[in-house]
């Protein structure tokens, strides 16, 4: 009887530990997508899990990218062309590998930096052995709501940071372009004005010799 109780406890702990797999931490990555390239990411999701895919183009060209999300059977759940920023929430209807791809195949020479955040399920609980039999106290529920509010603050901060990075990279591009352009144009001005004078002189020099030859 003692061994049976022990084995049941082990089995329950194993099941509980595996149940925690339903709570998977979100993945947030920023990567560079070269021109004419496509990058795909895959994730194994359990049925019934609520997932959110959020992406934003940070730098490059017109700040747009194609995004496509497919379920394990290949059905397209989300497909958008040339989108700058979007957020898509869905509940997994099937078990298996979900695939999402970012494509820059429409662009010939600009490579883009893309940020995406793929949240799967809920955050893992603070205490793995927590028993949810008793309700949360007022303090605990206040902590939970503050935690959720802070999570959304961090999310907004991330998006603000990306927009700022966008603006900053444009400003730095503009700065270098203005520098090169001003030097280049000053040089072109000088060259053109000198060559104009030289060309005009050459016109008059030829005429002079012809007239003298005809004269004599």
């Amino acid at each position, binding site marked *: 009887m003692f061994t049976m109780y022990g084995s049941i406890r*082990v089995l329950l702990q*194993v099941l509980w530990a595996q149940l925690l797999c339903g709570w998977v931490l979100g*993945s947030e990555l920023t990567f560079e997508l070269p021109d004419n390239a496509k990058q795909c990411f895959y994730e194994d999701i*359990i049925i019934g899990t609520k997932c959110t895919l959020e992406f934003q183009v940070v730098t490059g060209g017109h700040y747009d990218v194609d995004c496509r999300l497919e379920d394990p059977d290949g059905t397209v759940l989300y497909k958008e062309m040339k989108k700058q920023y979007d957020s898509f929430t869905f509940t997994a209807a099937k078990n298996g590998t979900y695939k999402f791809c970012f494509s820059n195949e429409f662009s010939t020479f600009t490579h883009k930096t893309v940020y995406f955040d793929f949240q799967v399920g809920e955050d893992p609980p*603070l*205490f*793995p052995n927590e028993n949810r039999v008793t309700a949360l106290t007022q303090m605990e529920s206040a*902590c939970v709501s503050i935690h959720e509010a802070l999570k959304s603050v961090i999310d907004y901060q991330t998006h603000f940071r990306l927009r700022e990075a966008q603006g*900053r990279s444009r400003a730095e591009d503009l700065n270098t372009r203005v520098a090169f352009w001003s030097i280049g144009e000053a040089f072109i001005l*000088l060259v053109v004005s000198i060559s104009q004078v030289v060309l005009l002189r050459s016109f008059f020099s030829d005429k002079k010799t012809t007239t003298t030859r005809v004269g004599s």
Partner: protein
Amino acid sequence: MMLAVSAATLTLLLAWICPSYALYFHIGETEKKCFIEEIPDETMVIGKYRTQLWDKQTSSFLPSTPGLGMHVEIKDPDTKIILSRQYGSDGRFTFTSHTPGEHQICLHSNSTKMALFAGGKLRVHLDIQVGEHTNNYPEIAAKDKLTELQLRVRQLLDQVEQIQKEQNYQRYREERFRMTSESTNQRVLWWSIAQTLILIVTGIWQMKHLKSFFEAKKLV
């Protein structure tokens, strides 16, 4: 005995559909995949990866590939290499940023034998956690013997600290942005003045030169 066996099989079964690190992608043999993390200073980053190799015989991905390693290279915002190490097929790397900005984490396989990539694909599971996500709260609770409420407050403190660092970093970035804009403004101003001057000077020079040239040629 029976229960132990069934527990073991259940674990194995669930472990197969529940990999430890969630997101994965495919990488070619000589391909280098880089990820950018824009982080404030004194922020900890923990990266974990796991590789799987395509096996032609079984037409599936093998659980692990012994002998195949991944080279991890991390560059700081000044493009100085802060970490450049070879890890095995499963690896865990960690670093703390000392300067705020864009850090680049690059991964590429160290495979030299073409035969290993017969299928052409290597599956890499990757998980990068930044800042307060790197804290392992159950571990902290056990170490410091915190109650549930204390642990929750600790988590909130860590989150607020991260927000504070990010705001600080934002102020530094905005300063840089402002400096760049002001420099562009200055450059445009000086360039327009300089160009006007050049135009006027070359115009005057052209007229003077041509006038003297025509006078010499007795055309004027």
